[in-house]
């Protein structure tokens, strides 16, 4: 049993160390005890001054548990840890790297070049986020937005200051698709499209919200009259259109619309007449999944009838309706060597229609839409090269005889294909007109000029919601190059 003196003595040390009697631990030697024996006790008591309160430890534990539970329910614990890195296919990857450096402050981490000069692989760091990219390698099916007609994947980038980030990006050439604004889910964010066709959602977190709170705000937002719960999707191709739309500049446009309705079940979507007379300034009709634009030829735009491949289920019926509606037969319906069945007619405006149906399991024409434009250039390889250089076209098929004649070739531009064969028989070269949607009309217009096209009209904002311009390619075809920027009511 400790004696009373020891107990009292110890309490005096405690009192002093706790500072109640104004003494500092070092002064404890004032106590009449051997310093060597006392020192560890004084030190121990000094350390006990920092003893945490048990109640505090318990309370903090409970708070952390609450937070942790919220965190674990917010995201179900994944079974494994993985990293996910976007790998961008870009026509002109080297230029894209320079753009990302300037626009997004990216740092180049590495770059590998192919012997053929294409950029085989590169890695960039954007504020700690990794992206990988390379030039297009169509032979491996590695194609970018310009070839595919856009990318279905958005890149979502969290940045510390979204407004400053967007300013720098737009100054470097990115375009705002959706302006930077506060969002109901606690972010301030917007969308940019880069000159290579990738859409970036850039965002800065402003508020930490639970999923329930986000849902509540979303519900409120949707209940407000006139509100749109979802912003317009970012796209540079007008609704209902594809990358390529044939534009028929022909005489008797009004009559042609009636013909297409009767013979091919076309739907008229839009028509505007010239101020004086009945001539059509611009019209849009749809056959199956394909839009066709047309206008009456005039002094500025002389007639340029097209050759169109029309896929139908019942070739004979469509052919019969076409001839009954006034078309002239060029080739009657027949079975082809390939197993396809088809025939060719000439409408009264001068367009040739190859009405056909592919053989079962055909792969060459699998990407054809209901209506696909066809060309008869004198030198198909030169035209293919132009389409590659100017529009990022990709040669997907070529049938060439040993003497060098191209019997059939197919080029993909964006989400569309066009066909071509060198002139033969009645099918001689004649230029057509096409409407081409691209992610960045300004850039493509410039590229087309560099590839040998001549300007019809420079790129400008058009009242109908496109930004576009026109060029004539070296083969006489007219291309109206456009980026859809906003929807305009007709």
């Amino acid at each position, binding site marked *: 049993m400790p004696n009373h003196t020891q107990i009292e003595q110890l309490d005096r040390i405690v009192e002093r160390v706790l500072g109640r009697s104004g003494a500092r631990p070092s002064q404890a030697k004032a106590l009449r005890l051997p310093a060597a024996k006392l020192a560890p006790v004084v030190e121990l008591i000094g350390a006990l001054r920092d003893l945490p309160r048990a109640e*505090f430890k318990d309370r903090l534990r409970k708070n952390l548990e609450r937070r942790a539970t919220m965190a674990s329910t917010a995201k179900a614990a994944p079974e494994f840890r993985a990293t996910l890195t976007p790998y961008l296919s870009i026509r002109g990857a080297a230029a894209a790297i320079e753009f990302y450096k300037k626009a997004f402050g990216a740092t180049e981490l590495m770059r590998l070049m192919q012997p053929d000069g294409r950029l085989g692989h590169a890695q960039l760091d954007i504020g700690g986020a990794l992206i990988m990219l390379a030039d297009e390698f169509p032979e491996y099916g590695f194609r970018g937005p310009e070839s595919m007609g856009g990318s279905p994947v958005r890149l979502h980038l969290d940045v510390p200051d979204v407004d400053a980030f967007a300013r720098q990006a737009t100054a470097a050439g990115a375009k705002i698709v959706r302006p930077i604004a506060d969002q109901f889910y606690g972010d301030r964010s917007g969308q940019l499209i880069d000159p290579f066709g990738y859409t970036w959602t850039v965002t800065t977190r402003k508020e930490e919200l639970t999923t329930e709170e986000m849902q509540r705000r979303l519900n409120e937002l949707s209940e407000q009259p006139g509100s749109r719960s979802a912003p317009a999707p970012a796209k540079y191709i007008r609704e209902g259109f594809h990358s390529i739309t044939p534009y028929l500049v022909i005489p008797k446009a009004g009559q042609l619309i009636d013909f297409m309705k009767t013979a091919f079940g076309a739907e008229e979507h839009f028509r505007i007449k010239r101020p004086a007379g009945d001539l059509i300034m611009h019209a849009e009709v749809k056959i199956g999944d394909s839009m066709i634009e047309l206008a009456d030829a005039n002094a500025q735009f002389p007639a340029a009838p097209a050759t169109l491949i029309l896929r139908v289920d019942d070739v004979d019926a469509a052919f019969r309706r076409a001839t009954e509606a006034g078309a002239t037969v060029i080739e009657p319906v027949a079975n082809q060597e390939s197993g396809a069945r088809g025939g060719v007619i000439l409408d009264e405006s001068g367009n040739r229609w190859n009405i056909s149906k592919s053989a079962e399991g055909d792969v060459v024409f699998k990407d054809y839409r209901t209506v696909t434009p066809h060309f008869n250039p004198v030198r198909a390889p030169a035209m293919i090269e132009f389409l590659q250089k100017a529009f990022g076209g990709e040669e997907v098929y070529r049938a060439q005889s040993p003497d060098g004649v191209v019997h059939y070739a197919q080029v993909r531009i964006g989400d569309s294909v066009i066909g071509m064969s060198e002139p033969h028989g009645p099918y001689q070269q004649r230029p057509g007109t096409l409407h081409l949607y691209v992610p960045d009309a300004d850039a493509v217009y410039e590229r087309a000029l560099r590839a040998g096209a001549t300007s019809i009209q420079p790129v400008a904002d058009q009242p109908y919601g496109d930004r576009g311009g026109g060029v004539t390619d070296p083969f006489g075809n007219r291309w109206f190059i456009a980026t859809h920027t906003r929807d305009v009511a007709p």
Partner: protein
Amino acid sequence: MKALKEKPDERLLIEAAQRDPARFAELYEDNFERVYAYIARRVYVRVDVEDLTAEVFHQALAKIGQFEWRGAPFAAWLYRIAANAITDRWQRAAREKGTPLADDPADPHGEISPEEIDRRALLFRNVAGLPAEQRRVIEMRFAEEKSIAEIARELKRSAGAIKQLQFRGIQTLREHWTKKPRKKLGGPNA
């Protein structure tokens, strides 16, 4: 008495917490006393020590996914968070007062070694392992900063009985109070 040793499976605990934040509780249990001791050696007002300790663990929970195992003890990571939190708070306080920024708050004890922190953390944990009555008295006396008279009143015991429990508690703790780690020899920058 529980030993305050590096658990060999600390890495597993961290990975478990990274997969499921609910598992963070174990890391908290293992490191609470260390973090508290570390902060208490640099900050003298108890409410500030508690605030900062809470801040460190909340930050650690939020950032646990970013922790990369490189072989250093988990506590080292917590100390780094704590050091930053202390500096931030001090700078904020200096700004609010409008006083010009001086250097980091001086550490009167010099650089605190992890061994010294562990030694103190073990002491705190040993308090929790004392017999119930001794433990209660030690906690009230030191953590709750109460006088013998207050404790006697609250526990409905005589002042002498409280002093005796205090004496026994400190005796027990002293048996486990390890020797102070020797200071490293050498110059001030060694």
